[in-house]
């Protein structure tokens, strides 16, 4: 698997690179570490102002990539390149196409809480338009030097669309040679006060959702090829955060989510539940693009 790491000379870049290394090693593939610099006007100006600026950018990009080179070392085969583009989003997508990358790896905005993810401007843009999977490293993500990808957990709901997401996640698991776990979130809604129907009515709804989810997961697993193995779990809690805490997580695990089927075909577009999962996940996540409904039902 060829991972395109969107690298910048800050902590977010380092975290993305760390995740890129993990993925490249797991798949026995390679990385393309790319830093995007602003496109200069290219017109000769009397005072060569633009050319000087271009020179500065080039130097900056070189320094940045040197830093990345030092971080990667011999841990994974990697190419390093800089690209001038009108925007980081366009630059990354064009590079991904040119280099035939299999996924894009990005870091979190610095606005996120430590250990969780929040998309910045570039990531948001890429997530809205990327035709390929996007891996996201949470803020302050720092796997140990021996960290290995251990498992991919795929968040599914019990809708027909999520079978497709699970199949995609299963393909990724096969390439990375890790087991798959299907996880359905049951986030218990607040109870309404006061009410004549008792003060446990929402638990009744949530327990029904659990039962539905278990049946849905069974159906999805039966639709998957036998290898690599797939298990199922239900994350149940009052908030997304506590739901995450209710299931065990392995060291080196990632969570995969499907993009909303409301977005353009073959593009990544986050639904509201997927966005909540990304923002509450304490582990790296992988956003899989929606494949269209033709094969899903």
């Amino acid at each position, binding site marked *: 698997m060829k991972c395109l790491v969107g690298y910048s000379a800050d902590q977010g870049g380092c975290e993305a690179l760390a995740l890129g290394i993990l993925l490249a090693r797991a798949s026995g593939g390679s990385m393309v570490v790319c830093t995007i610099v602003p496109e200069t006007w290219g017109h000769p100006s009397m005072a060569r102002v633009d050319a000087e600026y271009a020179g500065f950018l080039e130097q900056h990009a070189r320094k940045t990539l040197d830093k990345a080179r030092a971080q990667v070392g011999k841990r994974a085969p990697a190419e390093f390149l800089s690209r001038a583009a009108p925007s980081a989003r366009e630059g990354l997508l064009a590079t991904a196409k040119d280099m035939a990358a299999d996924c894009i790896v990005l870091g979190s905005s610095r606005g996120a809480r430590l250990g969780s993810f929040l998309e910045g401007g570039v990531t948001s843009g890429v997530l809205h338009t990327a035709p390929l999977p996007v891996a996201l490293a949470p803020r302050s993500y720092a796997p140990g030097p021996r960290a290995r990808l251990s498992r991919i957990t795929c968040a599914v*709901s*019990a*809708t027909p669309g999520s079978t497709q997401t699970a199949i995609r996640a299963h393909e990724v698991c096969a390439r990375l040679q890790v087991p798959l776990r299907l996880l*359905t979130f*049951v*986030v*218990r*809604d*607040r*109870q*309404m*006060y*006061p*009410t*004549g*129907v*008792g*003060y*446990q*009515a*929402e*638990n*009744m*709804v*949530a*327990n*029904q*959702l659990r039962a*539905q*989810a278990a049946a*849905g997961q069974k159906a999805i697993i039966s639709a998957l090829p036998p290898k690599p193995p797939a298990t199922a779990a239900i994350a*149940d*809690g*009052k908030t997304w955060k*506590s739901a995450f805490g*209710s299931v065990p997580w392995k060291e080196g695990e990632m969570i995969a989510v499907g993009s909303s089927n409301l977005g353009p075909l073959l593009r990544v577009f986050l*639904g509201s*539940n997927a966005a909540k999962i990304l923002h509450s996940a304490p582990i790296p996540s992988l956003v899989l693009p929606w494949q269209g409904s033709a094969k899903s039902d």
Partner: protein
Amino acid sequence: MSEAQSLGARLLRKKPIEMLVSDTAGADSEHGHLRRGITPFQLTMFGVGSTIGTGIFFVLAQTVPTAGPAVIVSFVIAGIVAGLTALCYAEMASMIPVSGSSYSYAYATLGEGVAYFVACCLILEYGISAAAVAVGWSGYLNKLFEIVFGAGLPAALLSAPLVADGYALAFGGEGIINLPAVILVFMCCLLLIRGSKESAKANAVMVLIKMGVLAMFILITVTGFSASNLQPFAPFGFAGISAAAGTIFFTYVGLDAVSTAGEEVENPKRNLPIAIIAALLIVTSLYVLVAVTALGVQPAAEFEGQEAGLATILENLTGHTWPALVLACGAVISVFSVTLVVLYGQTRILFAMSRDGMLPELFYRVNPRTMSPVACTIVVAIFVGLIAAFVPDAVLWDLTSMGTLVAFMVVSTGVMILRRTRPDMPRGFRVPFFPVLPLLSIASCIYLIVNLNPTTFKLFGVWLVFAAVFYFAYSARNSRLEKAANAAAVRG
């Protein structure tokens, strides 16, 4: 093998308490979820919050013409009946270790037949009262429009095409559809689908708003009080008072929210009756004060057919629009929240019924994206919306009272039966003065019921026949207990 069980066995089979507990178990971390977290004060506020708003804003227009100024007495009578039933209900609720609706309590203690019957009454209590409240809301919304924009909505869009002539339903009048009521129901439906809930805090705010505007009404109207308006006090005699009390019982619907909290409150033996009686005293005194002051400033003859009554009275009295504006705003906000709560209750009762197999599966499908029972909510909204759009509120109020009274009569009877058949079952709360109090509760329910008008009886009868047919055609065969019994029979 659906014929395995006799009709009697079906009607009497009870839902095991373990099943009830597992149905409402919390997330894994909080199993054994008996967190007794509600204080008596909070519980009283729940009682006040869920009761005020279901009628006091509109009910005078209907009941003053029936009882005259003696409607004050009707409020007290209805309040006493509500208190008696709430106390009986609290004992039944406290026999089950989980908090639920009177349907689920009846299912676990009195059997499927009674539970189904109670549920039919609850549908009237919730579904019909949601429609009734929405209709009343539309009057206040229109009042708000009139004050703010100088003109209200066209009359054709404001009231139902059916009119209650006396109580006989007939087509006529200038209304085509009660549009604001429909819009309100669907707004609440959207909120419920999205999972918006009124929290205990939101309830406290709503209680303040409701009590605030009612207090303002009382304080302003007391300045224009004229005792001569109260003469003659009871032009229609005791019959009028009783008939009005039956309708007014509707305004106490919601007090049962206190009874169901038995498992969540600290020391229920002491705190449940305190909360029920405190809530009842607060609510009844507010109602009586509102009724007395309203009657003090407006002759009884002018109440009939008055929409957004309290706001109009303020406007006429003061000659200014701002007090009416404040009151209309308060009513629009708080009645909105009441509609939300009542609709919520209706969806969850149907949810519980369909989980038990009494209704088709559609009602308990949870949408995995919104994590709420979307289909059930939409079906409820459509039905309630249709009723609110096309049926006049007078009929709805009486029907709500009918459903609630019958349900509580059954519950009170059940409490007495269970003392005899299950004397050893643990009870967190016991009705004081047994058996006098339950007997009084039953007698008072019957008294209010017989005074309701004949149209209500007809509608209630039609509803029960429909429900019974559905039970024997569907529910009895599809009950979760039927399947369990059949499985046991096959094993055995």
